[in-house]
């Protein structure tokens, strides 16, 4: 909490000026409320003969109809107003917080009932209600007014708090806290409430404003006691005396001005409240693929020597170093090897043959990026990038989080938003080729579409997109240069149909095109990407992730552009869908002949699919070359490290001793000490299968109402409102063994994880711990959580951004203190929770001194996942369930995390269940594999047998969805330059199946 205070203090210092004005004004009124009545020169109620006197030295603000001193009344009247405002503000906020939290967090009926109550109060007309109620409180003191205000005012805030709580309840860090064993009250207090605080703070100010205005209004219409002096009461008497018609402005203006100023102060303070306690960007952290946000100046903990270690080979701090957009670590790699100034030297890493030579033919240039530098404010995000795209070429740009790849895409497509801006460089787009030069167009494109291309000729000079004026740019967009943005969920307009979004692009560029032909063309492109034309009428939310991505690709093809830029087109998709989408793009590329710029973090994918691969690191292109060359002999150490870091089916982690050694070096400073050797083995005797499973699922089934199972739409064909997400799943986990549970999205594997972690209870079937069924009492749940712990997929979401890394681990230690009491040799007897937490952090390869007091926002993705693993370890579980533990992380840190899990399993003798859609990861880590499809287990057995020789179609599909550079020549149409025979027969068969199925893709999702 002191961190929070620090943050607040820091932000208060940078408060916007209006807010400062507001605070000062409010302070003035508070002082006025306290001392005002004492300063009044006269008794505010005392009448004099000077009736309705204009301001004079005797009466600075004049007098009323009965000769009372206006100034004295103003001075005396502030107290009641402020008292009512403050009291009602505090009470309303408190009631709103309690009711809102309860309504949002309580399950089932009680939550519903509370929210219905709030809704009832919301539709009651506030002011009439206040008036009617006040009339019952005839002799009401200010306290009565406060009560009335609270009664009518709480619902508004409660509703907002409830909405916030509802969304928080679904956040991963709440799930993680539950899985860790926290009680509901504690979760509400420590996990949820800090996130509701901004709403409450702003709600308090709003309630106070409401109370002040309401009190004044009531007093003004003569309710709530006209005998007590307040500004509203003054206006009541003024109104009754027709002060305005006799021109006694001095009677009306001062009290009103005070009310207005007080209201203004509160509004201004509210702006300030947002600035101080509002949500932070650094708190949310950044995800792979998103533009890097800057975790304010956190120095990379690794020293220079460590920084030179190839990322990914050391599961310690070096590769996970806090992402740093200025690229200190990256620069040390680049500079260490290219000695000195970055820009010119980078060019030396480019292959002499240059881009476009990948297929052996010299391609005419289509897009040339020259010395492009983009800055985010003052921080450079892309630095001196040179890149060339030939006509019909596939250029891949590989880069990890923070490498600037999205910024590069936005710069090329002129979509940068402030504060990002191009600082230097050009993006030349060469004119459209003559009709003869153009690769054959698709038949679809030639269906009588009027083209606007008549004004473009081959002999025109190239245009610089960076400098192009708005009108020419708009004409050129989509016509020549289309883009597929990452995050298909948000790239489609949620309230327009697919058709509307396709047609408007057509009609913007072909004003003469009628509606019917436009719709026809829209249907054509949809079918081109393998979607049924009935989806023209669909909205984005009705489509699955893969289908949305296809719609976006279809949209890009509408006008048959020369170049399609794809920004992480597959990041949000599971491997099977990824594969399908990429295949689709390549097929269309071959059919239609547009050039492709494919930007992704997935180097393997590029090696398989692209002609030319460029590796982007810290805003610079460190290597460019034909994909095959880059794969065979990477010229830049960073590329080599990336290639080495890929978790591929070919190498088992066991055969990667480097990883372990590197971890040891990193954590302990000496390679002689393995990181976990010192720790005692909890399960002294390695248990074989004969010892019986530590955790067994027996016929687990779980069904959901249809609307809660968005991804499994494929199973709805049979009708009915219930989806069986998990259907009779049985599996066994043995101590010391790693089991991989694999399956595509919607196969039910995550539901199995939730059932095994007891986040949900099965409809049918049992979970057995050490052969005994788990009970349902609180004590049984705690005992269960001690035995079975869960690591969630997304470390950017599973840690509460307001708590430190140390807090997360220490809380789990406190909860499971019993696990540490006896017989532990890892920590000294009677060690504090803090000390144990530090030991745990060390065990996962972190430096406690560095990370303990850091909030997740200041940690990299890999570091966060290590913290999450340490938290799970705090219970000293017999079973660790890891639900896609690396899928959200950069490729270079994945191997490190998997190595940590593997080492912990071996050292602690835990059973590890690794849930993944990544066959390579499963292959590299697991002893046994369980394959799920459509809620059922379809195949299980030893890893090598199941994955090496898959017998079920679902397994084959998963195996074949893996990117495989060795396969590239066969998938690139026509140019069959070897590689095909290297493939196992099964995958060739499966790919044939793919070819068949591309037209009916929806059946998969």
């Amino acid at each position, binding site marked *: 909490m002191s961190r929070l205070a620090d943050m607040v203090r820091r932000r208060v210092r940078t408060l916007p000026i*209006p807010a400062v004005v507001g605070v000062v004004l409010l302070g003035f009124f508070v002082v006025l409320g306290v001392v005002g009545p004492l300063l009044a020169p006269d008794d505010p109620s005392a009448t004099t003969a000077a009736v309705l006197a204009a301001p004079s030295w005797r009466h600075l603000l004049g007098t009323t109809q009965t000769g009372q001193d206006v100034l004295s009344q103003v001075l005396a009247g502030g107290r009641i107003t402020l008292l009512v405002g403050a009291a009602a503000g505090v009470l309303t906020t408190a009631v709103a917080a309690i009711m809102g939290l309860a309504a949002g967090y309580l399950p089932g009926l009680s939550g519903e009932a509370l929210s219905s109550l709030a809704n009832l109060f919301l*539709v*009651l*007309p*506030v*002011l009439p*209600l206040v*008036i*009617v109620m006040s*009339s*019952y409180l005839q002799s009401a003191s200010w306290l009565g007014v406060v009560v009335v205000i609270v009664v009518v005012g709480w619902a*508004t805030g409660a509703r907002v708090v*409830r*909405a916030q709580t*509802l969304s928080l309840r679904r956040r991963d860090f709440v799930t993680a806290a539950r899985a860790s064993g926290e009680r509901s009250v504690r979760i509400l207090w420590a996990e949820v409430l800090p996130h509701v605080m901004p709403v409450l703070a702003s*709600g308090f100010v*709003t309630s106070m404003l*409401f109370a002040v*205005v*309401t009190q*004044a209004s009531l007093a003004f*219409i*003569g*309710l709530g006691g006209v005998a007590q002096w307040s500004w509203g009461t003054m*206006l009541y008497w*003024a*109104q009754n005396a027709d002060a*305005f*018609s006799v021109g006694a402005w001095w009677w009306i203006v001062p009290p009103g001005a005070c*009310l*207005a100023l007080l*209201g203004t102060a509160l*509004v201004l303070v509210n702006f300030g*409240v*947002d600035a101080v306690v*509002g*949500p932070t960007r650094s708190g949310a952290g950044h995800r792979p693929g998103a533009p890097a946000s800057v975790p304010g100046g956190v120095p990379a903990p690794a020293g220079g020597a460590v920084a030179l270690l190839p990322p990914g080979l050391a599961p310690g701090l070096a590769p996970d170093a806090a992402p740093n957009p200025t690229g200190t670590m990256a620069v040390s790699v680049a500079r260490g090897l290219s000695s000195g100034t970055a820009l010119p030297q980078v060019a030396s890493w480019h292959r002499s043959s240059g881009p476009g030579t990948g297929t052996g033919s010299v391609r005419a240039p289509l897009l040339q990026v020259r010395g492009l530098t983009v800055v985010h404010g003052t921080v450079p995000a892309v630095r001196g990038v040179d890149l060339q795209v030939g006509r019909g070429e596939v250029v891949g740009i590989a880069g990890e989080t923070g490498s600037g790849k999205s910024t590069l895409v936005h710069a090329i497509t002129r*979509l940068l938003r402030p504060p990002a801006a191009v600082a230097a460089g050009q993006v030349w787009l060469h004119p459209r080729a003559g009709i003869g030069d153009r690769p054959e167009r698709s038949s679809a494109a030639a269906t009588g579409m009027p083209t606007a291309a008549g004004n473009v000729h081959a002999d025109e000079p190239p245009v610089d997109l960076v400098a192009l004026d708005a009108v020419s740019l*708009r004409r050129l967009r*989509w016509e020549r240069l*289309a883009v597929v*943005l*990452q995050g298909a969920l948000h790239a*489609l*307009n*949620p*309230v*327009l149909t697919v058709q509307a979004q396709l047609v*408007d*692009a057509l009609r*913007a560029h072909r004003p003469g095109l009628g509606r019917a032909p436009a719709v026809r063309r829209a249907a054509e492109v949809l079918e081109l990407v393998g979607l049924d034309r009935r989806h023209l009428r669909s*909205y984005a*939310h009705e489509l699955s992730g893969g289908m949305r991505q296809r719609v*976006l690709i279809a*949209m890009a093809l509408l006008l048959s552009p020369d170049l399609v830029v794809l920004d992480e087109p597959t990041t949000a998709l599971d491997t099977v869908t990824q594969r399908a989408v990429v295949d689709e793009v390549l097929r269309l590329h071959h059919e239609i002949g547009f050039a492709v710029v494919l930007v992704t973090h997935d180097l393997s994918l590029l090696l398989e699919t692209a002609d030319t691969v460029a590796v982007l690191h810290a805003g610079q292109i460190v290597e460019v070359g034909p994909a095959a060359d880059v794969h065979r002999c990477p010229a830049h150490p960073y590329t080599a490290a990336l290639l080495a870091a890929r978790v591929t089916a070919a190498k088992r982690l066991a055969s990667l001793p480097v990883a372990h050694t590197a971890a040891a070096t990193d954590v302990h400073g000496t390679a002689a000490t393995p990181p976990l050797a010192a720790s005692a083995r909890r399960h002294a005797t390695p248990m074989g299968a004969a010892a019986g499973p530590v955790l067994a699922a027996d016929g687990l089934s779980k069904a959901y109402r*249809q*609307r809660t199972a*968005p991804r499994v*739409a494929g199973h*709805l064909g049979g009708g009915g409102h219930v989806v069986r997400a998990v259907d009779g799943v049985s599996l066994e986990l043995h101590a010391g063994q790693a089991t991989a549970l694999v399956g595509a999205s919607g196969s039910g594997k995550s539901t199995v994880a939730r059932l095994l972690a007891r986040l949900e209870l099965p409809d049918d079937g049992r979970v057995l711990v050490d052969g005994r069924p788990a009970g349902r009492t609180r004590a049984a749940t705690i005992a269960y959580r001690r035995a079975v712990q869960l690591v969630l997929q997304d470390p950017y979401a599973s840690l509460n951004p307001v708590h430190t890394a140390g807090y997360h681990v220490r809380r789990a230690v406190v909860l499971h203190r019993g696990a540490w009491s006896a017989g532990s040799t890892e920590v000294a007897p009677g060690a504090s929770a803090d000390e144990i937490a530090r030991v745990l952090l060390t065990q996962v390869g972190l430096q406690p001194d560095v990370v303990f007091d850091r909030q997740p926002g200041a940690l990299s993705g890999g570091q966060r996942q290590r913290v999450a693993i340490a938290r799970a370890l705090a219970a000293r579980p017999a079973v660790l369930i890891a639900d896609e533990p690396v899928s959200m992380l950069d490729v270079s840190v994945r191997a490190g995390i998997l190595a940590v899990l593997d080492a912990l399993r071996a050292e602690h003798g835990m059973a590890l269940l690794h849930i993944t859609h990544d066959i390579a990861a499963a292959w590299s880590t697991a002893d046994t594999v369980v394959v799920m499809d459509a809620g059922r287990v379809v195949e299980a057995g030893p890893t090598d047998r199941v994955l090496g020789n898959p017998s079920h179609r679902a397994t084959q599909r998963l195996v074949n969805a893996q990117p495989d550079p060795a396969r590239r020549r066969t998938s690139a149409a026509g140019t069959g330059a070897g590689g095909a025979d290297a493939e196992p027969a099964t995958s060739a068969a499966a790919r044939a199946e793919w070819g068949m199925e591309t037209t009916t893709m929806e059946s998969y999702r």
Partner: protein
Amino acid sequence: MLDLVLRSAPTATARPVRLPLGASGPRWGGAGRRRGGRVRFVARRAGLSAATLVAAVTLDFLLPRMMPGNPLASELLRLGGRASPGTIRVLQNAFGVHAGQGLAGQYVAFWAQLLHGNLGVSITYFPSSVSAVIAQSLPWSVCLVGVATVLSFGLGTALGVVAAWRRGTWFDAVVPATGLLASVPYFWTGLVVLTVFAAGLHWFPLSGGSSATTTVGWNWPFVVSAVDHAVLPAATIVASSVGIWLLGMRNMMVASMAEDHVLLAEAKGLPTRRVLLAYAARTAVLPNVASLAVSLGFVVGGAVLTEIVFSYPGIGFVLFNAVSNDDLPLMQGVFLVITVAVLAANLMADAVYAVLDPRIAQAS
């Protein structure tokens, strides 16, 4: 109008939140099933509104019965000898002191009277019935506040779009300015406006809804006079509420302009106007539209304070008179009418929302 201002207080974090109460609907299917989802959503909300209405009527029934002392006696005293036996019975019903009837029986009788449109007799406007008083004052409020609300919504929303689009220019200064305007108590704004434009400059009349020399109806002198009388109160309402709409729209618009689908619309080369209106504003305006529907419900309640300041013969003024005169039957009636209107408007907001936002049908 106070309610309007305070309900959507100008904060950046507390954006209007509409929470559909768990509408169920199929995720898949053609337009037919989708429409089904929307209908189900609205039907569910209608059920909720009905429940709320029953609760409100019950509250209305109970309030007088919870009053301390003997309100009936004071009401009868106030009427003096004018009360007929029928009136006394009505009052006895209202206060629940009718002999020989338990609370349940009274409740049933209360409903029966309501369903017959019988809201009792007003004491302030004796011997007019409550329904007659309401029927007479309602059109004034609906016209004045309704027109002002729609004007304010249109102006504020349009300015909000501009404010978001022109972010970083001088236009930014407009935003806090309108916000400050909204924080000024507008009964005071009304008083100042009256002092300047009516009492001082004599541009507009001081009070009332129309000139006493005209007869109410569709005749030219009356319409001119009514408009003349409505300008100041309407301007007061618009001035103090336009900032709320502006701020809401601007915040939503700024958020929506940063969304990918807007970026993509720009990348598609659509004209700026279409990007701005069909993409950015189209999604951003949804909360404002919902708020408008709700605000229109509050129109029926009139703008109590504005009507009091301008002595405007609307329903807010009637309520004020009822309260000052302890006219319980009238208070009950007005309160009920307002509640019904607000509920109806809420339902309308839901229906409009279901039409405008296809996602609602499957929200959970």
